[in-house]
């Protein structure tokens, strides 16, 4: 009796080292400009080439500006990092979705939308949010640069099999409650290290009824409770999403793969090292108040009176026991690999349509990819944002980690759809409140922390 995770893992073990890790075969590696240059330098130093370049794809995303992408990148260090990616890809025959070309975007948005991400695969990237791809029923996890080098050199990694956890949520989500709220709720229940040492399977009717975009938001933030990754068994929703995408299997190959993918589920009596169950009805729109993603509350709730992390409250300038509702904020960021997909902008537009941006708000509305940008234009979403006084930008990681110019100034509050509220994450001294696209849009039009259910 096996779990979904067991089935995929076992199929990818090249050999097991006694009292040591397994040699795990990697089907697909994604790379970006921040965590790959030192890996390529390592290969050059050893005089070896990329082993399976056709299984590697690259996109610049972290350093890229979100305005004027047709111009050279102004900041020298960022420009050099992107140029190094170009050179490394060209020298090693790696497919690159370059800046300002049709398929550029945030690495975890691009992989799924091009059909590079498929059920049953092992997928790695030098980026902790690689967990996103687990939404397709794949084993996907973030790695360090030494491991990027190993995967480039041998298409394998040395990995010890993690423990396994299952989180089951049954029931129906309420009005205004999104996948982002569900994952923030789970992290608040388990804490920011509740998943450390584990790989998580999400199961139950709440996940079955989610779209692929919602499942990606869920799996994306698995790392924020410490789990190396999270996955959801593939089903008809998954297959329908993957079918006919650019790099998805076609024709006979599709039929063959589909038969394999239909066997990817956890056997009914398989056991997990840890299990949690929650009710979908208990989840409300969620928001964080502290400096790790586990410090979250329902939007209409109060910061715990006995919050032990005094340092975090001081940083945020919040008091234990107080409410967040109604507090003015300064910035709003809608985007990132967590919430930068078309559904996220549809959700934000549903609140923004017919309203105006609040005067005190500066907003970054940043699509996850060129494809998302194009679709948002075709659906009239960009027009909705612009007529409300927002600028819809070009794709990239942007203010999620503020490696480009998109920063939040010291002391300012930002309601952000990204994944981390760490000190300084959005700029030195910036104060981040993580929330869903609905909650972020509500703050953007009211200028303060607002329950999105009031505006739906």
């Amino acid at each position, binding site marked *: 009796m096996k779990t979904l995770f067991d089935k995929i893992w076992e199929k990818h073990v090249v050999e097991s080292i006694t009292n040591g890790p397994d040699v795990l075969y990697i089907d697909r590696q994604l790379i970006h400009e921040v965590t790959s240059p030192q890996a390529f330098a390592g290969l050059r130093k050893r005089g070896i080439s990329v082993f399976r370049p056709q299984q590697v794809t690259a996109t610049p995303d972290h350093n890229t500006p979100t305005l004027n992408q047709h111009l050279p990148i102004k900041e020298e260090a960022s420009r050099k990092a992107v140029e190094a990616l170009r050179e490394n890809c060209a020298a090693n025959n790696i497919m690159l979705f370059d800046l300002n070309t049709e398929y550029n975007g945030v690495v975890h948005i691009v992989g799924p939308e091009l059909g590079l991400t498929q059920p049953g695969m092992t997928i790695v990237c030098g980026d902790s949010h690689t967990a996103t791809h687990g939404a397709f029923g794949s084993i996907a996890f973030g790695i360090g640069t030494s491991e990027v080098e190993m995967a480039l050199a041998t298409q394998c990694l*040395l990995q010890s099999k993690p423990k396994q956890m299952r989180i089951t949520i049954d029931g129906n989500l309420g009005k205004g409650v999104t996948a982002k709220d569900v994952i923030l709720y789970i992290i608040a229940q388990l804490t920011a290290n509740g998943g450390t040492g584990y790989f998580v399977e999400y199961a139950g009717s709440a996940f079955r009824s989610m779209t692929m975009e919602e499942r990606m938001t869920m799996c994306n933030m698995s790392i924020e409770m410490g789990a190396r990754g999270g996955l959801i068994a593939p089903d008809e929703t998954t297959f329908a999403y993957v079918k006919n995408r650019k790099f998805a299997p076609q024709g006979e190959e599709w039929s063959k793969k589909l038969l394999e993918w239909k066997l990817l589920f956890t056997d009914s009596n398989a056991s997990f090292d840890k299990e949690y169950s929650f009710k979908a009805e208990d989840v409300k729109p969620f928001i964080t108040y502290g400096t790790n993603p586990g410090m979250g509350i329902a939007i209409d709730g109060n910061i715990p009176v006995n919050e032990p992390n005094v340092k975090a409250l001081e940083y945020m300038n919040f008091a234990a026991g107080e409410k967040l509702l109604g507090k003015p904020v300064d910035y709003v960021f809608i985007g990132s690999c967590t919430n930068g997909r078309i559904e996220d902008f549809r959700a934000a537009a549903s609140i923004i349509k017919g309203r105006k941006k609040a005067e005190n708000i500066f907003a970054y509305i940043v699509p996850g990819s060129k494809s998302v940008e194009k679709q948002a234009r075709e659906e009239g979403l960009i027009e909705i944002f612009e007529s409300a006084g927002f600028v819809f930008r070009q794709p990239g990681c942007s203010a999620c980690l503020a490696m480009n110019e998109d920063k939040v100034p010291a002391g300012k509050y930002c309601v952000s759809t990204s994944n981390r509220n760490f000190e300084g994450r959005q700029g030195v001294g910036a104060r981040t409140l993580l929330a869903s696209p609905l909650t972020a849009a509500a703050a953007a039009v009211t200028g303060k922390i607002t329950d999105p259910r009031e505006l739906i």
Partner: protein
Amino acid sequence: MQKLTILTSPCVPLNVESVDTDQIIPARFLKTTNREGFGKNLFRDWRYDSEDQPKSDFVLNSAKYSGQILVAGKNFGCGSSREHAAWAIADYGFRAVISPLFADIFKGNALNNGVLPIQVSENFVQTLFAEIEKNPKTEVTIDLPAQKITINSINLSEYFDINDYKKTCFINGYDDIDYLLSIKEKIEHYEVQKS
């Protein structure tokens, strides 16, 4: 990778939980394309103020503390997978980090860079913090072959876990990539069988 077998050193105490890799090395310092020189920006925003002046209340700026071992609260190294965090810690001169719990990706990155992540009980770490508080020169001995860590002044020891493979790597200075390259034929054989 630099070898490590037995290490005796005083410790630098960082009594904070959930130290994330954005604190260890902020994103704005990740633009360089080489592995060297990250130590000067280790804990940059806790260590320096907005005018780049050292903050006197941060442990790395205190003359009291020194050594090759960093001691921290639980969930050390959470967040971003950036190996730059492990490079910064190694470049600064630390050879080991002691914590009651390490984030998985950081732990792997540390092991690949000759920095030993030593996971011990919360009690042991709290005792160590208390001993360092009493005497900042408190020395710890890490005995990797025996997988044992000792607070020398009070002769308190605890055993720690590390798999045999990684232990061998540390003791001999081997990298994972050397091993993987040595089994390339086996990998090619796997590929043929799988397809």
